[in-house]
């Protein structure tokens, strides 16, 4: 049945060896062409390449001086990375100039500003908002696509703190729970945060090799079929890593690591516990270096207008709003009059839209100003606060 492609339909006999070899050679090429045409006609797959490589600190970083495009049915934008691996059009001196205020932003692709131009990214809009409120502050965006909280902590120690920020902002998203387990950089041992893995560089070696070839770089920015295959492969690998690390954690601590917060027995090694401990560590590192610490919640935008936040579901029992400085756009996103607004792009990888970035920047600016998280004071903040309440 399967082999009938190698047979003559009328005689039922096998083709000659040469013809069979030709079919075997041409079939994969035909399948690839068919797949690419199919994707373009029926799927309209978003092309969201990520230019990341391995850093000396054992985690991923943006490829310095890279520039690449991201396209979907809704966007066509360019990502530019400076020589320090930050999404910015200029480099920043390590030594903070006298009198300068600095904010370090740590996040994944949401804060990296995927699917929006830099002018519409969270960092850029936050910087503008603060400048408008007479609180000029340069923002260094250390975000890298795929990061979780564990990587923020590693990144803080190796990349962020040398820049002497006055405020550190952590993105908080539902995927952090999973990413922190997958990366296995930290685990909990009787409730204590322990560094377990030296590095987490998924598929970076392969990617680095492939990136040397111009055809591969062309492919990742232009082939929809490749994009689909890469996404599926990435998801599968992550799923396997999640299973592996969950089992590993369970075997090392059978009483916890279930990831199921509804269990009757209290666990101290669940993904929620790990996330909480990592956030505590982030705040501790910030405070030890004279920086304030702010969490910015990015709700899940899969099914608008039914947004939900990790604060209200998985992390509900930890009461993060009471224990951390926190900004969340949930109140704005879920207002009935905003139900038709588009806060997330739906045709790409569900990143924040321009409007979404603007709202998140607004609430973050409002939190920074109202809680006086920056050393510079005395500014008139009324503009920002008004803008936020108008949303």
């Amino acid at each position: 049945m399967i082999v009938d492609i190698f047979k003559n339909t009328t005689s039922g006999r096998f083709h000659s060896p040469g013809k069979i070899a030709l079919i075997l050679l041409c079939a994969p090429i035909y399948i690839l062409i068919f797949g690419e045409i199919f994707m373009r006609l029926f799927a309209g797959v978003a092309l969201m390449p990520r230019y990341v490589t391995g850093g000396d600190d054992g985690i991923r970083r943006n490829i310095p001086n890279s520039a690449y495009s991201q396209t979907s049915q809704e966007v066509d934008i360019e990502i530019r990375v400076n020589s320090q691996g930050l999404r910015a059009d200029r480099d920043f001196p390590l030594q903070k100039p006298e009198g300068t205020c600095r904010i370090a932003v740590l996040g994944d692709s949401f804060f990296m500003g995927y699917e929006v131009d830099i002018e519409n990214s969270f960092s850029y809009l936050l910087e503008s908002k603060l400048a408008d409120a007479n609180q000029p502050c340069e923002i260094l965006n250390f975000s890298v696509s795929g990061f979780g909280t564990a990587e923020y902590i590693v990144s803080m120690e190796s990349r962020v703190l040398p820049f002497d920020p006055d405020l550190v902002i952590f993105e908080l998203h539902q995927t952090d729970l999973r990413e922190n387990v997958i990366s296995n950089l930290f685990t909990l041992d009787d409730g204590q945060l322990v560094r377990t893995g030296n590095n987490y560089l998924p598929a970076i070696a392969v990617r680095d090799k492939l990136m040397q070839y111009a055809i591969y770089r062309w492919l990742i920015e232009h082939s929809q079929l490749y994009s689909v295959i890469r996404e599926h492969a990435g998801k599968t690998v992550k799923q396997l890593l999640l299973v592996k690390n969950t089992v590993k954690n369970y075997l090392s601590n059978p009483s916890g690591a279930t990831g199921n917060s509804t269990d009757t027995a209290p666990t101290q090694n669940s993904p929620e516990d790990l996330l909480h401990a990592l956030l505590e560590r982030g705040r501790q590192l910030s405070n030890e270096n004279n920086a304030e610490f702010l969490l910015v919640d990015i709700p899940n935008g899969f099914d608008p207008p039914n947004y939900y936040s990790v604060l209200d579901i998985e992390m509900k029992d930890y009461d993060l709003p009471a224990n951390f400085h926190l900004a969340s756009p949930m109140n704005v996103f879920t207002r009935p009059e905003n139900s038709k607004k588009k806060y997330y792009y739906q045709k790409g990888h569900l990143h924040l839209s321009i409007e979404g970035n603007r709202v998140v920047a607004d609430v973050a600016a409002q939190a920074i100003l109202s809680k006086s998280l920056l050393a510079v004071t005395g500014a008139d903040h009324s503009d920002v606060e008004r803008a936020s309440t108008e949303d």
Partner: protein
Amino acid sequence: MGIDASSDAAVSLNKKTRVLPLVLFHTSTFFLFFAIFIALYFGLHKFLTAQNLLVLVGSYIFYAAWDERFLVLIMASTATDYIAGLGAAGRQISRRVALKTAAFLLIGSGVALGATIAESWQFFAAVVVFVGAGALALRHATGLEEASRRKFWMTISLIVNLGLLAVFKYFNFFADSLATLASGAGLELTWTTLYIALPVGISFYTFQTLSYTIDIYRDRMKPTEKLMELAAYIAFFPQLVAGPIERARNLLPQFFKRREITFERITSGAMLFAWGMYKKAVIADNLSIIANDAFASPDTMTSAGLWLGLIAFTFQIYCDFSGYSDMARGIARIMGFDLMVNFRLPYFSRTPSEFWRGWHISLSSWLRDYLYIGLGGNRGGGLLTYRNLFLTMLLGGLWHGAAWTFVLWGAYQGSVLVVYRIAHIDQWLARPLSPVFEFTRSAITMAIFFFLTMIGWLIFRANGLDNLATYFDGLFAMRALGDTGSLTTVLKFIVPLVIVQILQAHYKKLEFQFDVTPFLRYNMYLFVLFSIVALTYQGEVEFIYFDF
């Protein structure tokens, strides 16, 4: 009607327990389960009994992944019909058989509830009471004459199976409706409503077990003395939660002979599964977004949007259910079993009788054989036949769910069936015409009946009577026809399906792929494969029929 139907619909559609991924065929969790299962299954190919035991254990694990407590219901139904089947054949139940059945139920329930016995001890207590009641029934039946004994066991099967349905599926519906009706008359009825989750698949396996005992009672088959095989047949996981409702006459004998496992069966089963997955995960789930939007707020939609929403649901429900059936048949085929075809191009029907010969065939034939004929069928002449048709469809509607919209849908289908019968449309269509007129007549009658089917689905899907009225009003209000934004999406998913169905009709075969050239066949495979890879809806949409 004075009854708040919207709340009833909400009970059926919203107040359900979430189904875990294992019972959803198109999830990685199920693939992992099936990979382990099938490896063991193939390994036991030479040992029929061990293989049957594996099917039973695998099926129970599959069901327990949703809720292990409700496994007790399947076991109770199995135990009842095992004994009732033997009794309905006129046999005396031996002590050995009775003890074996009691042990199966008590030990099985104990194992199923073992981990959660502290919270679900009531279930185990109910099983103990049930076994006690069974012992009394056995004692009573022993003294009966053969004919009375047969009738007695048949009645017991009906009481237990329909009783399970009544308690777990319909109790809240009727209790709430009665309370609402009474409060409308100024009476305050208070009782504790049993907010029980609807056990997944209960409507399917209770009908399946009932047919086993009824067929024995009607001398259409002999009962089995092998409890394990009967239990495996009732709990057979490919079709346990959403059919097809397999008659024991077809499926049960397949447990008693070594199954044929060949490369051809495995590949064709895998392809049937892939086709079902394409219908479910690609077409149905993507169309569900458009349908859900339309039914959520029909008052804010344009007429064009409402029509698109209705078309989307018409194809969603077909692809959701027939996709599941295809997946079930594909899995069973890989295992060497043959399940019945459950859908045969229903949207190409010209009349309701053609439609019900092609839609959910296992249920419509069940209703025909055990309800319609039981009511007298067409033996009583015109009016009685119409009454029987109407009642059968009405109860068929209620089978789909405990909500007034389903009752109304059943009444609507019954009325359409009766009107077509009064007008002798089937006889008119049977009269031969020249090919051109034949084609025109078929096209027109098909279009008319497709329209009537869509109206039926509107009643079926509506979130209550108010929602139905608003939607219906909006459809024909001709409120701004400009909004056709979802048209491309709807067409993108429907057109490939319609093309395939035209080919199925042309070749008069559902699996026609071997009648076309290898080139076309492999391109079809690639289309389905790439669709599943790239177009599978990423959210979680359960099978619609899991609610029934």
